[in-house]
């Protein structure tokens, strides 16, 4: 079976030396470790925002980086969705426009906006589609950012500490939402965090980082969801 993500990278920045290798299947893999361990740098390298010194990145078996063969597929063509720490939404556009901009399919603006609206509904952001990011709370912005990260039908979603700027209550709500939405969308995701609880609750696989190295790897045991029965409870839009 082809790995959803296959990474073997080295990158030196000043005195910091990143040298990591890991593979992941479907589901959510968490890069877990202290600040400065190289987790976010790894995401940037996977997304193609930074070029590695050496190594390869394969997404669903497709080579997007291979330094030896001088292959560096542009960020635009990697089909990755990104969710940053504080959303990083376009402040001059509404929530709907932010998401619609990421939609690749569809015929014309109307179709793109319809798809964007459905994604905003899925993340519980239907109430504030027409509001600009400046008028949204941190939790609401992250809901929009999550919708934007998934709306382009990416091959892989990268979430860089998406909950670290939020308070505990909202963090708990969004953890559930992230897991629920990403798993139901069937898109493999890499989530970066230094919060052990967050890693346990959201991840299917935890890859431990320290000082630019992978120091451990553990599959999170989860109870098998019951077949049939009631649908999962909807997550509210109060965050």
């Amino acid at each position: 079976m082809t790995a959803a993500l296959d990474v073997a990278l080295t990158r030196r920045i000043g005195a910091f030396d990143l040298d990591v290798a890991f593979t992941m299947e479907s589901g959510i893999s968490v890069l877990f470790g202290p600040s400065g361990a190289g987790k976010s740098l790894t995401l940037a390298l996977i997304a193609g925002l930074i070029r590695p010194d050496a190594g390869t990145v394969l997404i669903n078996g497709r080579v997007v980086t291979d330094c030896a063969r001088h292959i560096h597929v542009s960020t635009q063509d990697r089909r990755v969705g990104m969710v940053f720490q504080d959303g990083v939404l376009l402040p001059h556009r509404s929530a709907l426009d932010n998401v619609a901009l990421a939609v690749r399919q569809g015929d014309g603006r109307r179709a793109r906006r319809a798809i964007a609206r459905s994604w905003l509904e899925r993340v519980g952001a239907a109430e504030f589609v027409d509001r600009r990011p400046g008028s949204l709370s941190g939790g609401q912005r992250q809901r929009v950012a999550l919708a934007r990260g998934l709306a382009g039908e990416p091959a892989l979603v990268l979430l860089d500490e998406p909950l670290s700027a939020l308070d505990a209550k909202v963090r708990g709500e969004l953890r559930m939402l992230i897991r629920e939405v990403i798993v139901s969308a069937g898109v493999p995701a890499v989530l970066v965090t230094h919060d052990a609880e967050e890693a346990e609750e959201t991840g299917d696989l935890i890859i431990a980082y320290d000082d630019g190295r992978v120091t451990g790897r553990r599959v999170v045991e989860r109870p098998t969801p019951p077949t049939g029965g009631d649908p999962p409870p909807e997550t509210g839009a109060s965050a």
Partner: protein
Amino acid sequence: MKRKIGLAWSLGTKQKIVVIVAAVGAGFGLGFGIAHLLGGTIAYWGVVSGPFLLTLRVALPATVIAGVTGIASGYALAKGRFPGRNLLETIGSLPIILPPTVIGYYLLETLSPGTQVGGFLTRVVGHDLVYNVTGCIICSTVAAYPFCLRAARASIEGVDPRVEQAARAMGLPNWRVALSVTLPLARRGIAAGLTIGCARALGEYGATLMVGGDINGKTRTLSLAILDSFTTPERNAMLLILVLMAITAMVGVGLLGRART
């Protein structure tokens, strides 16, 4: 942090333009009215209106040309690493550093049909580039360009790179990232540069004098007409009109520029 919403946020782009134009018009009317009351005659109109309209004919296209080229080169300097980058930066700063008469001299040397470059350009354009409105527009463009460039560059450099990265990750090609993300986010600085550039184009004097030739009714812009009017009774009307235009325009710009604090 509690934010204060200024007038600017309640107006759309078209309404803002209307406010600016109305402010300039109000200043013009006010100045003319006061001049009329003081002088007891409105005969100044013929003396003032020609240079005023000519100045608008020169400054508006000059601002547009300087704006487009200034934003493009400001973007290139902010984002690109290319050969000749330092040269572009230096050339862009020259009109600020050099006296306008020096700029005028070199423009005259370059654009005159008797020179190689000027002769070539004259043949391409189909008419002379000196001692006419085209020459005045070129001078005002050169004067306004560095202000548009510098403001655009600084504001483009100030855009959060993560927003652009997120847009790239969404699959937007670089040209769309520039047009849909970077430039809209840098719009305040760009607008400030255009405003200063427009003011510089309106007030251009030294180079316009040399390249335009200060020909009455043909290349005598408002700033040239002021000097020419110093020995005539219209000078006070002209100065008053200009001062009140400047004040009302600045008040208008100030109201529009009162962003969130």
